[in-house]
């Protein structure tokens, strides 16, 4: 019992030690600045484009609709995969079951389609 938890403990210590070691190493080998760094130097990103506006901007709702439809069919494949692997042993009952499952999902797709979720206005 204890040895099970000690594995977790060792992992915890390693995960703590690793970033500390990396940061410490960087601190040790980097060139030391002679004067205080200015504001430009302390920006999160020294190079690239300056950010514009706030990050809490609104996203078009269609992103979420696409994501939802995608998620439904993504999960469907998870169910389809083991079913396809074992298909020959499962027989007719499982075949009908899967048809029902896909049928219900297709009604959902039909609904999303008809309500305009797949159109980008």
């Amino acid at each position, binding site marked *: 019992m204890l040895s099970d938890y000690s594995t977790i403990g060792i992992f915890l210590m390693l995960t703590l030690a690793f970033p500390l070691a990396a940061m410490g190493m960087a601190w040790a080998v980097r060139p030391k600045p002679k004067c205080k760094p200015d504001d430009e130097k302390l920006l999160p990103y020294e190079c690239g484009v300056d950010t514009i506006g706030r990050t809490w901007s609104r996203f078009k709702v269609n992103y979420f609709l696409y994501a939802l439809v995608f998620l439904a069919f993504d999960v469907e494949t998870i169910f389809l995969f083991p079913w396809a692997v074992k298909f020959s042993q499962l027989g007719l009952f499982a075949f009908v079951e899967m048809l029902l499952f896909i049928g*219900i999902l297709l*009604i959902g797709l*039909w*609904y999303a389609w*008809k309500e305009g979720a797949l159109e980008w206005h």
Partner: protein
Amino acid sequence: MQISMLAPEIEIALLGLLLLVLGLLLPHKGRGIMGTVTFLGLVIALLLSAAGFGQEEALFNGVYQADSYGSFFKLLFILAGLLVVLSGSAYIQRLGRRANEFYSFLVFALLGMVVMAAAGELITLYIGLELMTISFYILTAYLLNNELSVEAGLKYLILGAISSAVLLFGISLVYAVSGTTVISEIAGHMQFQPAMVAGIILMIAGFAFKLSLVPFHMWAPDIYQGAPIPVTAFLAVGSKAAAFAAFVRVFMLALPLPQFEWGLVLAVLAACTIILGNLVALVQTDIKRLLAYSSIAQAGYILVGMVAGNEYGLKGVLFYAMLYVFSNLGAFAVATAVEVETGSTSIEAFKALGKRSPMLAAIMTVCLLSLAGIPPLAGFVGKFYLFSGAIGAGYLWLAFVGLLMSMVSVYYYLMVAKAMYIGTNDDMTPIKPDTSTRVALWICLAATVLIGVYPAPLSALAQTAIQLF
């Protein structure tokens, strides 16, 4: 195993899909029949569950239970759904082109409740719970142009998700210790250790949130107030009964008392819920908020029966949950009719209702008095079972708290009656609810009075259902 034992569930699922498809196919004008289709579908489901009452069988290796206990709650949910559809049809028609999805979500929420009540396994229970609550998130935020409704929906989504996570974490801890999620097998694999206690406490917290027990009740008033009123009615009655159905099944079967004294924890929760729910209800001026706090207090009363855990108490839980459907939905049906007419949910709008519509005022008074537990109405018999169960189990103080706060509750219930009969209103036009609302109101009135005068049949039904424990 026979598929026919799942007939009510399959019928309800098909009804939900049918409604979704009908909404797509029917031209705009033809959508008036959606309410009728929902009503007929639910009547068929009611008949199927009534026919299945008394069967006892475990399906899919105990994952799903077709037993009297589940059937009792199935009947309860379908009755609640029917009454909501009947009394809310005028309100739902006003939603315009989105009314068809409304019916569909209502039916899916109902399916979730049914699965919760009949689940014999924790993950199935959780799926039923999520089906129910996700449908309710959408229904709560249904009035998109109403700020209160959208806020309520968002609040419910966030808090509901957190509470589901807490419940799921509790389930995972119980599974980690016992090695099974099948409810009837957990007791056999119980080991008393800290992880188990943590799991049980997290599960109590998760269920307490769904039941809006103090101190997990903060969400209820805002959400009850913001949601469309038929949704509030269904949420207050159906969602609560479903949570009780699952709570009682899990705790009585999987986590029997001697292992961990959760009875006392629940007793304290019940006492807090009864006291706070009733006291805060005293100062409410909005009928939805008043009924929200009243339903918090009612959940406390029902919990008393579960704390008792004996025959009387458990019978009281089922009995009270059923009569609560009629009494509470009767009150909500009147509130819906008044809101459809006046557009207001404040108690001011009820002034002089006794003259504007004597029937509405009379039914409201009877239903509220039943909730207060005045004989000879149904609420009295229910409270009698619950409190005598508590006294039998040695929780005299809890029964005393319940009785005392019932007396307090009479005050705010009668404040509504006072507004209806003594208040004066500038607008004295009579309120005439449509036929389906009237049917729902008469059913609620008849059931509230009949159960109170002649409780034996319902009592026998509840007695059969609790044979499980």
